[in-house]
């Protein structure tokens, strides 16, 4: 099929070819053809600088942090704590003490649900989440509701893929303790009006948590501008390694919270009958942390700063417009979610007569990696009324030509199925 080969949109400011050269995995072949990686909402690829930073830590200054007085330990501590400062600046936190390193966003949300939740939520209280959450921002609240006897409410999603804010207003009341919501849907790509949602939560006297796992890597998030109380995100979706996530919280809230996990590093003193907790953020970081991964995340933040996330977002919106146009032309294909201007680089769809898993297998044959299934967001998939969807998700290194290849691959899959 003849399609114009365009590696970038002329209005685009990103030098995509140069960026692609930073990511070693993009050079590889899959099934004999160049990899087209369209599964960035699951995890992003890693630039060479991040991979090298991890290798360099293990090769040159591997040591435990916070306790050794020897040179290696001091170097490791400086690098690990330096990464925390970079992350704090990246999200405009008032202090790096508000940045707690966790294993991932899931652990960050669980930390709030257990620590803040057990101290602040009781029977009869209400928690509001939304129908477009990832399971990681549903299940911890279900567990909290079960433990405490609190009630869990869901903000519905409109047919266009937006949160129903009128319904949200109706759910808010003086019993609402917490509103937890995604900054950007991992299925629909919808960018939610986080500032507005938080302001309404505060007006009702509730605390607000943003699951920014998809938002931070693609658009960034400014916790002070948002006026958020908690924000969770993960390193591996933002060019960093797996095994490192972030909980940011307002200092007053974090100070008042009991510890989550007990053990080494989170204590100031331990006696047989009592222990005293360490200062923030270490109070919440029990045990030896993910040192290499933390350092790697710091380098990933440097990398994102060097690329400029504003440009990344513009690039991804151009890609999304292009994808929506190309996919809309495919007969029997249903697209989900709002128009490109209201979403990040995520496109979910369903091709009549081909199960998404079969689509994913056929596309894989052409080197194209997409995700198929419920994307860890079953309530939303149920709302869409399909058993599963196929999802293509983009990043700074995705090209228009790759989206053309996706569209061609979908047409070819239809041929295989005789459609």
């Amino acid at each position: 099929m003849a399609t114009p080969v365009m590696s970038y949109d002329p209005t685009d400011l990103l030098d995509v070819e140069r960026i692609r050269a930073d990511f070693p995995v993009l050079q590889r072949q899959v099934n004999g053809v160049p990899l087209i990686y369209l599964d960035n909402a699951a995890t992003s690829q890693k630039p060479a600088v991040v991979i090298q930073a991890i290798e360099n830590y293990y090769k040159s200054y591997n040591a435990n942090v916070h306790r050794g007085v020897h040179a290696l330990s001091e170097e490791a501590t400086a690098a690990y704590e330096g990464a925390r400062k970079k992350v704090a600046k990246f999200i405009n936190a008032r202090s790096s003490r508000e940045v707690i390193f966790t294993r991932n966003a899931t652990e960050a949300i669980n930390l709030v649900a257990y620590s803040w939740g057990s101290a602040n939520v009781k029977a009869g209280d209400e928690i509001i989440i939304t129908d477009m959450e990832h399971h990681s921002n549903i299940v911890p609240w279900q567990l909290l509701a079960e433990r405490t006897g609190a009630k869990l409410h869901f903000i519905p999603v409109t047919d266009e893929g937006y949160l129903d804010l009128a319904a949200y207003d109706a759910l808010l009341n003086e019993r609402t303790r917490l509103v937890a919501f995604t900054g950007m849907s991992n299925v629909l790509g919808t960018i939610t009006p986080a500032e507005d949602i938080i302001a309404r939560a505060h007006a009702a006297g509730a605390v607000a948590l943003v699951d920014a796992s998809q938002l931070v890597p693609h658009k960034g998030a400014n916790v002070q501008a948002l006026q958020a109380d908690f924000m969770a995100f993960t390193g591996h979706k933002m060019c960093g390694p797996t095994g490192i996530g972030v909980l940011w919280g307002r200092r007053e809230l974090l100070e008042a919270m009991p510890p989550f996990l007990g053990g080494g590093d989170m204590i100031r003193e331990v006696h047989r009958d009592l222990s005293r907790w360490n200062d923030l953020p270490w109070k919440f970081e029990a045990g030896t942390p993910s040192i290499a991964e933390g350092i790697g995340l710091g380098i990933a933040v440097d990398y994102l700063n060097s690329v400029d996330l504003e440009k990344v977002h513009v690039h991804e919106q151009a890609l999304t417009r292009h994808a929506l146009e190309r996919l809309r032309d495919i007969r029997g294909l249903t697209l989900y979610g709002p128009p490109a201007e209201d979403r990040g680089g995520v496109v979910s769809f369903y091709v009549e007569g081909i199960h998404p898993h079969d689509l994913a297998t056929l596309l894989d044959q052409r080197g194209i990696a997409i995700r198929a299934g419920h994307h860890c967001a079953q309530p939303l998939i149920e709302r869409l009324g399909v058993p599963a969807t196929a999802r293509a998700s983009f990043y700074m290194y995705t090209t228009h030509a790759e989206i053309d290849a996706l569209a061609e691959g979908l047409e070819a899959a239809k041929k295989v199925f005789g459609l």
Partner: protein
Amino acid sequence: MDAMSMYQEQILDHYQNPRNHGTLDEPVTIRREEYNPLCGDRLVLEMRVVDDKVEAVRFRGHGCAISQAAMSMLSEEIVGKSVDELKQLQKQDVLDLLGIPLSPARLKCALLSLKAVKAGVYGVPQYDIDEDDE
């Protein structure tokens, strides 16, 4: 593995024109629902056993071509078999019916049908098939 060979004519025929598809009239001796939460594949299998022989089978559900075609093929295979023979069905029997190479990720889809049959005849809440088992 060549994906095209995964979607050969026979598989697609069973997917698009499933045999023994629908709801079984009463009496239904064994009814079993299996669900693969990872994929969202779902199967409802109904069997009528008379004098220790499977007299009729119906199934319904939704999912990928592999899961649905495997159930369609297996449904033809089990009619006329005794309960003991169903208990002896192995993973390899289903793979032989499909006659295609499957990646580990897609093996689950193929074996959902066998899980439905086995859990049904044994009457257990869950029947585990060791996918690595040779």
